């Protein structure tokens, strides 16, 4: 077709100042300190004497245009026409004076959104695409978050945790999300089932072979067709071969489970950043509400809430009480799977007599 195509303007990342609340723009880099008058509300004081009051509210991340406009309307009527989104897909309205806060909160709750998620609350679970859009997922994402946050709503609205809690989910072992204080991630437990009739046509076999972390895949002829074979003794069921080669079906209604990991803290506060560690696996992938996973998460959160000191993130708390105590206090089982065997695993062995009795 000879239609004249429009060539793109490669403007890249737009200038953010044009979209910033004037008070933010005016005091850019000139903030003095902040306070946390109540859950969901922050106030930041500028050296200039200006103040900016933030009201944070949860969204479902994937917004239909109605919801988007509803949020805009609140912004227009009560928040000077500006909206900031946090990394966890919460909406933050900012206003320049305290009077504007209560009416804003009323409007938000009126409209069915939830105010909270600041400071020592359980922040909105950050999540990924899941069955809604991805081509790899072992489970859903938005649905998992909805189910869990329904149960954790009070911990989002209040700030009764020892420190902030950042949770995430991930719908396959690639982990586009799935880090933080508590991570609920897909964990496959069986090697891929291979549709040998397809491999030859749709997969670039050498690059699929190269994708396997444990070199368990080798090219093979099956019923005279070029295909791939998996050494099931070696295979760690990670699913890395599936994206480049969909005929290597890793997802299984029964055997694609969830695993729960805790103690990730990516901030440099106090200790250096830490990765999360396995605490529970074999958790059923059970839509629409994943009750088993939620139950474990709540058990962990309640134990943390009851036992940790102020300012201890989950990793700090566990570091203080020790992992054996973590398993004892949460009642979660300790198994051979908790002993790492991946590269560098030796560093996770106890090479000391440091033991709590």
């Amino acid at each position, binding site marked *: 077709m000879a239609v004249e195509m429009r060539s793109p303007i490669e403007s890249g*990342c737009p200038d953010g100042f044009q979209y910033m609340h004037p008070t933010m723009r005016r005091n850019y880099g000139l903030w*003095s300190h902040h306070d946390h008058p109540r859950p969901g509300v922050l106030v930041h004081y500028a050296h200039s004497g200006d103040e900016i009051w933030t009201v944070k509210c949860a969204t479902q991340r994937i917004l239909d245009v109605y919801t988007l406009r509803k949020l805009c309307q609140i912004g227009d009527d009560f928040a000077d026409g500006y909206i900031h989104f946090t990394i966890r897909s919460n909406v933050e309205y900012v206003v320049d004076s305290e009077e504007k806060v209560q009416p804003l909160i009323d409007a938000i709750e009126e409209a069915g959104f939830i105010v909270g998620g600041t400071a020592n609350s359980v922040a909105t679970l950050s999540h990924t695409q899941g069955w809604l859009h991805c081509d790899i997922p072992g489970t859903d994402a938005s649905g998992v978050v909805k189910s869990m946050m329904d149960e954790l709503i009070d911990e989002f609205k209040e700030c009764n945790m020892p420190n902030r809690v950042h949770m995430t989910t991930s719908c396959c072992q690639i982990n586009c999300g799935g880090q933080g204080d508590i991570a609920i991630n897909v964990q496959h437990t069986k090697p891929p089932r291979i549709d040998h009739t397809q491999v030859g046509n749709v997969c670039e076999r050498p690059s699929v072979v190269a994708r396997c972390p444990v070199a368990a895949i080798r090219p093979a002829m099956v019923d005279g067709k070029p295909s791939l074979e998996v050494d099931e003794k070696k295979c760690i069921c990670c699913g890395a071969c599936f994206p480049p080669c969909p005929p290597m079906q890793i997802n299984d209604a029964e055997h694609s489970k969830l695993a729960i990991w805790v103690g990730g803290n990516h901030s440099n506060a106090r200790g250096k950043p830490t990765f999360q560690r396995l605490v529970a696996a074999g958790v059923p992938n059970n839509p629409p509400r994943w009750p088993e996973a939620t139950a474990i998460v709540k058990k962990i959160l309640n134990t943390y809430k009851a036992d940790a000191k102020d300012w201890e993130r989950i990793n700090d708390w566990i570091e203080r009480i020790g992992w054996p105590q973590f398993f004892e206090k949460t009642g979660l089982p300790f198994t051979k799977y908790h002993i790492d065997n991946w590269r560098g695993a030796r560093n996770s062995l106890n090479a000391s007599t440091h033991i709590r009795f």
Partner: protein
Amino acid sequence: MADNKHFDTPMLDELENGPWPSFISGFKRLRDDHEDATIRGVANSLLGQLEHSYETRKGYWKGGTVSVYGYGGGIIPRFSEVGDQFVESKEFHTIRVQPPAGNYYTTDMLRQLGDSWEKHGSGLVTFHGQTGNIMFIGTTTENIQHFFDDINDYGWDLGGAGPCVRTGMSCIGMARCEMSTCNEQAIHRHLMNNFTDDVHRPALPYKFKFKVSGCPNDCQNAIERSDFAVIGTWRDDMKVDQEEVKAFVAKKGRQYVIDNVTTRCPSDCMTLNDDDTLTIDNHNCVRCMHCLNVMNKALTPGDDRGVTILIGGKRTLKIGDLMGTVLVPFMKLDTMEDYETIIELAEEIIDFWAENGLEHERCGEMIERIGLVNFLEGIGVEVDPNMISLPRQSSYVRMDGWNEEAIKWFERKAEEASA
């Protein structure tokens, strides 16, 4: 024409109960109330396929290749494997659009984007994806172009998808946070917009991500989730308002301050004096932020500000999660020259990786494979003790170049001194 009958969604309906905002209710609003039949149809069809996924515990999308005229990426194409049953959503591509650093919007602009999307897409949009893009979810190959043409005209451009430089992320930072010690807006745009070509035309071994956090609290998970992490810090003494310290101690009590502030200092460099003032051994402070976080009114970062740069963070595939490693302990970012320096560094790294990285090998995985020292030599960066937490433990190394290396070090030190 009349709408198709609505698919039954008993499982999804469950997700309309409970206090948390329900994405399903949102889908249904589109299905039931929207004036545009296409949108109603797409929503119904999407609900149908999603219910099918819930019932069978399987996903039914597959990928493909779609882009806009002049670009190679920016789109995540989705074709349904069960498109015959769920026809209206059988093409359901996602368009990744770069937001401003820090995710600020005017309501007008959000409405304008919403309007364009309503014209050309499903009416479903995500703020934001885990790499920071606005994700306009669900449209056809054809409409992608129309939608892009619209929004590109009023200032929006595509983000990254595929083996390319990805959309960056920055924290709210200087716009609202007293902790910030670097200009996230400037850093983010200088870096990203220097690589627009690499964003739009995937030609690298694999993806490459920039993330900027204004301070070591790292609200962007930059160290854990980006190839190139820029994190604000400072070199001089932190500022202590002793009056505020006393006020804080008066309010919280000495024991609280000792238990929650001084004894939590990872480098044990704070003392609460008998007169309720704080003494900080700034030379031993590792800038962990904890005490500033707890006493943010009394304690603030110093004035000699800049950034630390860490390289090679990423998640699991295929050698296991990697955190970034310190590459530049401290870099000033005040002048235009400073910004050129950081841009050149990023270019050096991406060029070296583009040449030496294997297919589908992230920068951090390459460093793990060739060793940090070879990487440093490749990009022309000198070794620095701040790159490590512990020196060599293993004696299994050939060190016959020791004297040359030692001389290099002393010469550098001499230069620094004379500089």
